[in-house]
């Protein structure tokens, strides 16, 4: 079956005065229509760069290589003009901080309207107005008639994020890229926005890539989960597989660090050390030096993504038949490796 979106060997590098930062290092991913794929990892693991690379929203000092295949067509070599037509209509983005993502001096209504008009320049005034109202209702903004005339500063954080979502949905994008859409919001609003994201996705059947640093946030919304570390995907599987049968030591560590899964009494688990700088990535597995289960080979050779099931892969030598058997510190099912 042809995927809606397939990333093949995607690399993103930032050229800085201090050297080239390899933010994304060879990512392969697929996304099918109607599915929510969550990408999880620490700050700086390249998850945001990955999203922005798909829409080519990266700053000028960034370069992208690899294939970005949409419905069988590679859009990676597209020039800016052609990409402009795809932005908004094929894919659109929900940003991390709704406080700064909206233009402070334009009304909410006109910012939503603009996203419609770009792709439908001949739309009549009445139809445009109706569509703006429809979108605001879709993202559950009450009293859209009066609120479309308001400015972003009149809106709360949650309301602004709803407005940003209305903008993202304005031109009926097929792929929604959500870049930490709840990080800047407080916890009760986070849940509302996630539920809204999930409902919209069911209603409109948009495929979604949801980027987050929080496995807890993702659990609520994702069909599949990809765990990223140092610019690479280290584990990918259905949400069920990743939460209940995680195989990569990094996934174990992330899950152990979740407050909800911590056993009472002890201090909350934190992953030791810091992620490596990606100007000069370490040899072997980038996680090895922070990994209490690291094998000698981890320092020498980078593990490829090894198959667990047809949908579940993890990049750890622990999956190799020669590796020692380890009982994971977390996970519900007992299993032998």
């Amino acid at each position, binding site marked *: 079956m042809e995927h809606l979106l397939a990333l093949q060997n995607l690399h993103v590098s930032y050229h800085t005065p201090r050297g080239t930062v390899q933010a994304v290092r060879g990512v392969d991913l697929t996304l099918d229509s109607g599915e929510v794929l969550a990408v999880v990892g620490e700050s700086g693991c390249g998850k945001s760069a990955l999203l922005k690379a798909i829409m080519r929203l990266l700053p000028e000092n960034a370069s992208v290589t690899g294939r970005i295949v949409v419905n069988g067509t590679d859009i990676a070599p597209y020039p800016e003009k052609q990409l402009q*037509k795809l*932005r908004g209509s094929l894919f659109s983005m929900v940003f991390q*901080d709704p406080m*700064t993502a909206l*233009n402070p001096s334009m009304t909410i209504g006109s910012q939503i309207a*603009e*996203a419609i008009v770009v792709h439908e320049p001949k739309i009549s005034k009445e139809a445009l107005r109706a569509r703006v109202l429809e979108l605001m209702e879709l993202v559950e903004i009450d009293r859209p008639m009066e609120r479309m005339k308001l*400015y972003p500063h009149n809106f709360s954080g949650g309301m602004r994020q709803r407005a940003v979502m209305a903008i993202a949905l*304005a*031109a009926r994008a097929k792929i929604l890229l959500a870049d930490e859409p709840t990080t800047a919001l407080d916890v009760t609003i986070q849940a509302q926005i996630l539920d809204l994201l999930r409902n919209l996705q069911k209603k409109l059947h948009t495929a979604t890539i949801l980027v987050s640093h929080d496995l807890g946030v993702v659990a609520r919304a994702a069909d599949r989960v990809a765990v990223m570390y140092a610019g690479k995907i280290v584990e990918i599987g259905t949400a069920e597989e990743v939460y209940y049968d995680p195989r990569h030591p990094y996934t174990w560590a992330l899950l152990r660090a979740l407050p909800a899964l911590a056993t009472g009494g002890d201090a909350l688990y934190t992953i030791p050390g810091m992620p490596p700088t990606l100007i000069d990535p370490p040899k072997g597995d980038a996680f090895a030096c922070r990994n209490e289960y690291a094998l000698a080979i981890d320092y020498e050779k980078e593990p490829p993504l090894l198959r667990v099931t047809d949908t579940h892969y993890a990049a750890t030598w622990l999956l190799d038949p020669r590796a020692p058997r380890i009982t994971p510190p977390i996970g519900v099912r007992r299993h032998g490796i």
Partner: protein
Amino acid sequence: MKTKRIVWRAAKTAAIFLISVLVLSLLVFVVSRLAPGDPLVAFYGERAEKLKPAERAAAEARLGLDQPILRQYALWLKGALRGEFGISYKYKMDVLEVIRARLPFTLRLGGIGFLLTFFLALGLGVLCARHEDKGLDRALCKIGTVTSCIPEFWMSLMLILIFAVSLRVLPSSGAYDVGKADDLGSRITHLILPLTVVVLGHLWYYAYMVRNKMLEEMRMDYVLLAKSKGLGRKKILYRHCLRNVLPSYLSIMAISVPHVLGGTYIVESVFSYPGLGTLSYESARYKDYNLLMVLCILSGALVIACNLLAQALSERIDPRMRAQEAIDTWEADTDG
């Protein structure tokens, strides 16, 4: 409720304006009289030096200069409130008449200079921001740095040297050729050189400001959102970024009006342009008190009015400022 608020605000603004002008007039009055110099020189010319002490005392008494300073001020204020600002010692005419004759020249030079500066600075700033760090931007910025470093009097002299003395294409002084006061062409050719100096003197300061503010806006998150909608770079620049640059630009330009108008002083004197600049210089130099007072109050009132205008403008344009106002009045209402 709303009209009451507007009236209250207008009354407050007017009160601030009047008090500022009053304080200014007192300051100018006292300072100008404390400064050394003999006002009688302006009145009698060189004869003043030959006056006998008795004649001198009589002359001073006639001009009211024998009174204590505050008493003089009270007298002046009484006249001023009736619209009588006295006569110019030098021109022996009502000071308002003297100013009325000169004002149009300054308005022409400063007004056109201001408009040109306003639009050119905006255009150049946006142009540079669009081509940030590319050849055009770098070249323009370098030219700008150099031209804004040249002092106005020197630039005036160089322009006179090149265009009036060597090339002989433009006149070096005055506002029109002798006997051709109503000839538009003559007026325009006399305006070109001083206008160039006035515009170049201010242009780059504001152009840089537009450029930097524009670049700041271009790095904002909302630009990324606009891009993700599918908007092209030009539309993002003009519809989104410029919109956020304009309010502060307008208010800064409103404040700059007296700068540009007042900045014509030096240019006017180098080009012997018969505007208020040369007049102010003379009145200060010759202790022409009555004239000096009105000129100072005029320029002071202009500064204050432009500041108030700037504030009103940014409140009208920037929705966040309006919101602040709403919050303030809401707080005032709930307090009361």
